Every structure is written in C-alpha cells, then in structure tokens.
C-alpha cells in the first residue's frame, strides 16, 4: 500500500502518513476483534438459550369469533352483573348466575378429579389474585367473576395458577385513540381495516399488524428470527389445522399435519403399518426409507443409497406392486435435476416433506403404543368420557394430543423452539347460540376447548414440560354484547375487543389482566350503534410482545415481530407491565 511508496527509507521514524495508515489499520483490526467478541457473546447467548431450554408456543385459534362476553362473566351482585343481564337479555344470551354452581347432570358430563370421574358439585366462579386491578371503575365487578360453566376445566387451571385472562384485547392501529365519538369520522388509516370481517380480522390477529398489507404472521416472524436456535430439519412452525396466517414466514414455512397422530404419507403408505421401505425389493436400501431408523440416516438421500451398493432408482429395487410403482415414480421425480432455479426450488418441497415426514414419524413413535394408541391418550380419555361427545375424542382434542406427542418426542426433532397452531371452528354463533345442551352451540364449543386444554396440561405435567409450554387463545373478534333476537333462537353478531387467555407453567395465573370493559351499550366503549362492540383497551401487540419475550426474542427482535408495539407500551419492563396490568408471565421460569 502507500507505505511502500514513501520517499523516506528510514522506517524507524514513522511520518504522519505512516501514523495514519497504521492507526487506521489498527482500528480496523480492533473493530474486528470487538465485533468478533460481541458476536461470540451473541453465539454464546444463543447457545445458552438453545441448550436444554425447550420452549413451545401453542396458538389455539377459535375460528368464527368467540363470544367471550360469555366466557369471562360478571357474577353475583355488581354493577357489571346488572349491565350484563340487561345487555345480554336475562333470558336470551345471559348465563344465569345460578349456573355457575352446578352438578354435572350425569357421568358423561362429569369432570376428572385426578383419579376418577366425578359428578360432584363444582363451581366455575373464580377468585382473582389481582382483585379490582382490571375494573374499568372502582368496584365495577365487585371481584365477582365466573367462567362459563363449560369452562370449568379452565377454572381449575386458573385456580392452580396456570392460566390468566387478558380482558378486552383486540386489533388496534395505535396511531390515534379510537373512541365512540370519533369512530365514524376517524381516517380509515387510524382504525384496523374491515373491522367485523372474519378473514380480515383473523389475518390481523395473526399478524398483529392491521395497518400494513399482510406479508408474514407474527409467529412466522419469530420462526424466521429464531431459526438459529433449532438444529433439526423440521420447521419451527407446525400446524395441525392447515394453512393459517400466523405461521406464514420467509424462511420457516409451516409443516402441516393432521390430527390423526400419523404423518401424511403417499396414498397407500404410512409410517407404521406400511412404511416406504416395505415397497423396496432391495433390503439394503430399506433403512434409508423406513421411518424407524434414527435421524439423520432416515433422511431421503438417493445418493447415499447409491453409495451403499445399489441404485435406488433402478426398477429392480422396487416391489412389483402398485405401491412400489408409486414410490419409484415419486423418487424419480424428486431425483430429477432441473436447469431452472425455480424448478429446483419447487423440487425441494416434496424432498423436504419426505425428510420431515421421517423425523416427525420418529417423534410420534416416542409415545406410540403397539396397538396404534398413544401413551398420552389417558389424559384425553379422562376429560372426554365415553358418551359425552361423538366421536368420543373431538378433533380439537386430537389436535392437542398431536402437539403433546410432538413435544414429548422433541429429542428426535433436534429443535429447541416449536410453534404450533391448532384451531376449533364453529364460533360464528349468529343463531341459536344457547341451544340448551352442554355439547352443542357455544356451550359445546367451550366445553370441548376447555377439556382439550386441561388434558393437554395434564399430559405436559406428566412429561415434565408444562413449564416449557405457553398456550394462548385467539379469535377473529368478540361478538356483539346484545343478542340479535329476543328468543332462544338468538345469537350474536360480529364485535371487536374480547377476552383471551394464556396458559402455561410460566404464566402468572389466577389473574384478570388488562381492563375489563364497561358494559354500557350505546355509549362508553361501544364503538358505534347499540350492539355492544367494545373498543379494545389492550392491543394484540401488547400481549404478543410479552409472549415473544418469553419465547426468546430480544427487544430489537420484538420490534421486528411487532413493529407497532411501542405505540401502545414503552417497553416490557416490570414497572410498565404492572402499570398496564399486563404482568402475566414469570420470565424466570
């Protein structure tokens, strides 16, 4: 460099140019070292997070818009209860106060006590640990609150300190305060677009970014950011309920499963009774195709198979059967080389699916019994007695069971972070919301949901993972407080802010967080009209930021996941969380 073209030959006396060059070089070197040290710190911190600190996040989505006005309910004698009965219609949508103390009518409706089913009297009334902190005005609820009778299993979790509610949460933009007065005149950009519309509000709940066109879900963003914590080939995101916005990501597309407890294989194959390897004639290749072989040698790898002594694509390697022909065809398609990058990229999808299929099969095998049942089934059988629902274990319960089994089999997946998505549909109760049965209408949905979640908790406790799991509920929106008819065929229509809950070992349970709505219809926080559609007092961002932090996101990563968060809350410091009544996670767990 310049140092070699200088005139002065005596290098023992550096001139000004030498000084500048050398000090710059030194500073560059120093910068690199400092950078390296800081990177090492990051790597160390990442490694520390990833080593043995498995965390699973479960999004329990209530598709259709849960009437959470009838999930967390004012009880006893209070101003809130009076407003509740007046608004909901005492004989239309209101849950009678006497219903909170009940005796299950028969053995099928009974509850698991930990050792047996019981039909003894129970109560869904709750005692909150943060009395009054959630009241919109002093003494409004009188600390007399109850859960829907069908949510008794959730009440047991609330009482055990494993579950808390967050009241009146909803999508908000945050650029300008929304009030009943300005609701109809605010610029469109100041409100979440298409309020009260199913798909729009679902997407907004699952992205928590209502003022920007959808690109990724907030779960997908987390998966993209924290993918370095996972060593396995399975995506951080697994959906047991199909495509959703929550898990849409750039780098970590969700892996989709069904609730049957087995991986979806090619028609005619499955991981246990008829694995792929059984369609091969060359037995030396079978380990590469059978899911039972431990990772990573179970991965689809035609070249490895080729090296082990045979051409996996040779016709003679496959059984002369329709299954063998199908397998050969799909293997040939996957082994094709493409000139186009797009084609190559497209080809990685089925290849990736074959790889993860084997991994997931191995994970599920950890809890699989020889007869096709699971070692965790007992918990769901306890909470879904024979004769209650038909089929006995509803789909949502099976979805939760698959999540539990994947967590139990996590060692096979080599991932320290998983994000699961499950969904229960049918909450759009515009008509006959209360049909008078515990297994139909809104009651039936609450009943299924609560039992499935309680069984999940028991399963997690059994395998010692309850502290490593956080489940949160979400739904399109709350429903109108007032009924749409005056008889027992009434339902409710689309609302806005509603109550959600979070559950897990790290949850500071037994609380109602946020602010319970003032139940005044045609005034107060009823956004417009006279139906009781509450303007949310807590944004989805605020809740999801706390959850993101628990999952391992740094403050800057939370800004990426939830860019609007600071419009509602300065930070996640304990002081701020307490002042907002949103202190629902114990980060030390």
């Amino acid at each position, binding site marked *: 460099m310049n140092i070699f073209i200088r005139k002065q030959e005596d290098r023992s006396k550096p001139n000004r140019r030498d000084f500048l060059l050398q000090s710059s070089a030194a500073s560059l070197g120093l910068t690199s070292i400092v950078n390296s040290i800081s990177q090492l710190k990051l790597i160390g911190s990442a490694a520390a997070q990833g080593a043995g600190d498995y965390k699973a996040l479960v999004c329990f989505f209530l598709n259709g818009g849960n009437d959470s006005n009838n999930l967390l309910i004012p009880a006893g004698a209070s101003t809130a209860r009076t407003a509740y009965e007046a608004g909901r219609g005492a004989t239309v949508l209101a849950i009678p106060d006497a219903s909170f103390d009940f005796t299950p009518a028969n053995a099928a409706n009974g509850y698991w006590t930990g050792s047996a089913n019981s039909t003894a009297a129970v109560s869904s009334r709750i005692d909150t640990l943060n009395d009054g902190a959630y009241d919109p005005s002093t003494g409004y609820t009188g600390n007399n609150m109850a859960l829907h009778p069908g949510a008794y299993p959730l009440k047991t979790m609330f009482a055990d300190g494993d579950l808390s509610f967050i009241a009146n949460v909803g999508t908000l933009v945050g650029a300008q305060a929304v009030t009943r007065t300005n609701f109809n005149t605010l610029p469109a950009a100041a409100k979440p677009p298409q309020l009260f*519309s199913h*798909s729009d509000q679902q997407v907004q709940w699952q992205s928590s970014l209502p003022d920007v066109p959808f690109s990724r879900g907030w779960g997908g963003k987390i998966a993209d950011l924290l993918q370095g914590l996972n060593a396995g080939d399975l995506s951080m995101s697994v959906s047991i309920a199909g495509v959703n916005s929550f898990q849409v990501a750039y780098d970590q597309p969700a892996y989709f499963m069904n609730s049957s407890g087995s991986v979806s294989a090619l028609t005619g194959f499955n991981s246990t009774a008829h694995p792929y390897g059984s369609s091969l004639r060359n037995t030396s290749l079978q380990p590469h195709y059978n899911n039972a072989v431990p990772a990573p040698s179970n991965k689809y790898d035609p070249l490895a198979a080729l090296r082990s002594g045979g051409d996996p694509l040779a016709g003679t390697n496959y059984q002369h059967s329709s299954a063998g022909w199908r397998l050969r065809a799909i293997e040939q398609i996957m082994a094709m080389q493409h000139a186009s990058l797009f084609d190559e990229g497209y080809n990685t999808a089925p290849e990736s699916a074959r790889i993860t299929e084997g991994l997931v099969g191995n994970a599920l095998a950890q809890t699989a019994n020889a007869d096709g049942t699971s070692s965790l089934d007992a918990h769901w059988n306890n909470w879904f007695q024979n004769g209650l629902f038909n089929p006995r274990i509803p789909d949502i319960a099976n979805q939760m069971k698959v999540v539990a089994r994947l967590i139990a089999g996590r060692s096979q997946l080599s991932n320290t972070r998983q994000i699961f998505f499950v969904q229960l549909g049918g909450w759009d109760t515009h008509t006959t919301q209360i049909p008078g049965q515990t297994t139909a209408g809104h009651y039936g949905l609450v009943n299924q949901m609560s039992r499935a979640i309680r069984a999940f908790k028991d399963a997690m406790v059994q395998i010692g993972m309850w502290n490593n799991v956080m489940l949160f509920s979400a739904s399109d929106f709350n429903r109108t407080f007032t009924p749409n008819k005056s008889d027992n*065929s009434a339902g409710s229509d689309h609302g806005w802010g509603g109550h959600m809950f979070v559950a897990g070992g790290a949850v500071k349970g037994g609380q109602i967080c946020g602010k319970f709505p003032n139940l005044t219809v045609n005034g107060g926080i009823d956004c417009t009209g006279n139906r009781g559609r509450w303007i949310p007092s807590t944004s989805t961002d605020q809740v999801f930021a706390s959850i993101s932090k628990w999952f391992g996101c740094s403050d800057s990563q939370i800004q990426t996941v939830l860019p609007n968060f600071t419009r509602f809350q300065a930070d996640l410091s304990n002081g701020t969380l307490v002042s907002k009544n949103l202190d629902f996670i114990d980060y030390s767990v």
Partner: protein
Amino acid sequence: MFPKRPGPYLIAFLLILLIVLAVWLFQALTSDVVIQAVQKKQAERPRPVTQDPIPTPMPTNPGIPRLAPGSIDPALQAQADGLHNLQEPPERDLEIVADFISTYSKGIGGNPIGDNADITAALTGTQGHKGRVFPQNHRAIRNGQLIDRWGTPFWFHPNSGNQMEIRSAGPDKEMFTADDLVQNPSPSGLGVTPQSGG
C-alpha cells in the same frame, strides 16, 4: 537560482494573492459610496405593473347535471328503484344490494362494515360516513335498515373485506330457514349457521 522544488513557493504565493484580493473586495463592497450608488440605481428602476387575473369561467358540461342536495347519481337512483320490483324475482333484490355494496367499496376503498344499520348508514352517507350511493328516503329503508320485499331486514355477514353474505329471510320472515335467499354464501368452518356451519 530557482529552488529545485518550486511547488511549495508557488502555493504560498497564490495564497497570499488570494488573501489580498479578498480584503480588497470586502472593503470595496462595504464602502458608503458604493452602497449609496446601488440604492440610487434601485430607486430609479420602474416597478412592474401588477394586474388582477381575469377569472376564468368554469367549463360547463351540459351532459352532467348538477345534483340536488341529498340526491344521488341518476344511474344509481334508477338501480335503487329496481329494488322490491315485484316484476323481478326476489333474488334480483339481493343482486342489487350486492351491487350497491360493490359500488361503495370501489368508491371508498373497502366494503362498509358492521351490521344492517351500519351498512345502511354507510350506503346512504349518514352518521358521519363519507359518500352516498343509495337514496336516504328509499322505500327499502325502514328504521334505518335495508329490508327485503317481505319487510324483514337483510342480514349482512362480512366474510372478508370484499366478500359479504347477504341473506333475506324469505316469505316466512324467519332468518336461517329453508326459504332464505342467500347471495355470496359464507364458507363453512366458521359455524355461521347450522346449515352451513362446520
């Protein structure tokens, strides 16, 4: 006689010359004589004559009549008049209502939100809503709600920002019964009605 490297001497000479020039220019521009001469010159210069612009009349287009306050575009009015036309099948009413919602959406940038009363207010431009595509005093509006030809309010169910189920209770005036008429039925899975719920 001359130094071997004249460069530094040349640069020093040019710097001195520049400083001398700058000092001279500063003194010249701040002298009273020069300032008075400039002021005198400016005072003698004639001012430009300003004239008020001649107002240009707004172009008139005889093809676009001015609308009376509270009225709507005649084409939309004609479409609204087609509602409850007993010469047309009742399904036509739902199509017309869907067309009005579509027109509103194109103008405002999204479907109106809320239930019947909210949507009616939006279409008629009342309660602070912008734009008006439906006449406020139409016979199909009763108690602030759009009604079907049997007198029952339509049921609006926003599935997405651009897809809305519109339901008429039909002749029996009971919603969610077999004789209901439905435009853009909702997808299954939400559990909208026992019939379509999943």
